[in-house]
């Protein structure tokens, strides 16, 4: 009856996750706020999350976008574990995975080939990230 009404613009849900040992969450906070102001619903994981906790959160919260913030340099071990977990629960296909932090150019290709959609380094602008999310957030029905 009111299908068109019920199909009001879907709210984009994001998980902003801090994994591993580094305690620098200023960037994650700034991004969480910017996403909120862009009208997204942002689930913030808190610090020092293990990959399986991030997977649990991404699966249960059914987020469209998973933003992983890593400044420790451990991305090559942590990110693949998260991607594996998403696949295990059937969540990989329709989750846009972004990595924010300091990732050497040499590692970027590797992360992309594993399934990370984009990597945002220092100096990336908020607007750029928000536009990217708007453009690439997975279509769902």
């Amino acid at each position, binding site marked *: 009856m009111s299908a068109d009404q019920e199909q*009001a613009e879907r709210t984009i849900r994001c998980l902003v996750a801090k994994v591993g040992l580094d305690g620098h969450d200023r960037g994650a906070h700034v991004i969480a706020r910017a996403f*909120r102001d862009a009208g997204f619903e942002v689930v*913030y994981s808190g610090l020092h999350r293990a990959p399986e906790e991030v997977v649990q959160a991404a699966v249960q919260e059914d987020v469209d976008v998973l933003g992983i913030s890593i400044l420790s340099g451990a991305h090559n071990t942590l990110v693949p574990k998260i991607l594996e977990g998403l696949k295990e629960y059937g969540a990989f296909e329709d989750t846009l995975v972004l990595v924010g932090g300091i990732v050497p150019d040499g590692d970027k290709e590797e992360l992309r080939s594993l399934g990370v959609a984009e990597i945002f380094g220092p100096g990336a602008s908020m607007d750029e990230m928000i536009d990217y999310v708007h453009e690439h957030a997975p279509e769902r029905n």
Partner: protein
Amino acid sequence: MSELVADLLAGEHRALARVISMIEDRSPGYREIVSELHRHSGTADVVGVTGSPGAGKSTLVDKVASTYRDRGETVGVIAIDPSSPFTGGAVLGDRIRMASNAGDMDVFFRSMSTRGSLGGLSTATTDAVTALDAFGKDKIIVETVGAGQNEIDVVRTADTVAVLVPPDSGDDVQMLKAGILEIADLFVVNKADLDGADRTVGQLKEMIHHRTDASGPEGHGTDDDGWTPPIVETVANAGEGVDAFVSAVQDHLDYLDESGRREEKVRSRYAAEVRTLLREDANALLAEELEARGGVDPAVDRILEHETDPYTVVADLIEPLESCLEERRQG
């Protein structure tokens, strides 16, 4: 049966997560899904937890969930945070406190925003609880800030409602009188190690006593349906008092079963659900009709010119519906 429902009933976390999203988004087809799930629900105990911001709800919920898990029960949590009325965005931070259950998939924790503009928060929450219940969760905890009628509506759908009061919050206790007191099945004074906790406990005791005196002839601390809300003192972040909380909840659930109040509650919950849905659907139907007739603006123009008035406008819209229903009843 739809594939999504089958997957959910088979215990797939992803299907459960997806169904809750559909409920929140009111995606096409969500109604059929909730209808199907309904007959598989009705076994979980639902506990509502409310209280002012910073009272320690999330921390307590985390500890309570892990206590249930230790007893071999599965848990669903719905944590509701306010969304911005301006952008619709929200930062949902309750998950940060979920440290005791990190990585345990048998605690299904879901953050929801109030999505103010959409309304229907209590409908969405009720439906999400139905989904968790059908999934097979033994205990479902609904956590919400106790401010505003919306939140009160949400939390009162629970079997047992716990209201958290931070210590030394004289003003808060005053505020509680205004509505939350009536829905509390138990009180929790969290951060009971802080100064002022004793005073808060005292104030609450007095208030409960007063309430019970006023509501029944017995006046011995039992209210008119035979339940006196206990006050549990906790230090949630240290895990103190959590067992006492869990047994207080169990006492209340037992009371509901033994007194037959559970059945009454379920009945009135379903009745409220039917009424809410009816209101929402009738509202949507008539809003559509209003749009089809050119929207509200032309009507307002005519009201401004004193050619008509709000009552007449509404009567014109309702009239066809009324006569149609009348015809059917007679036919």
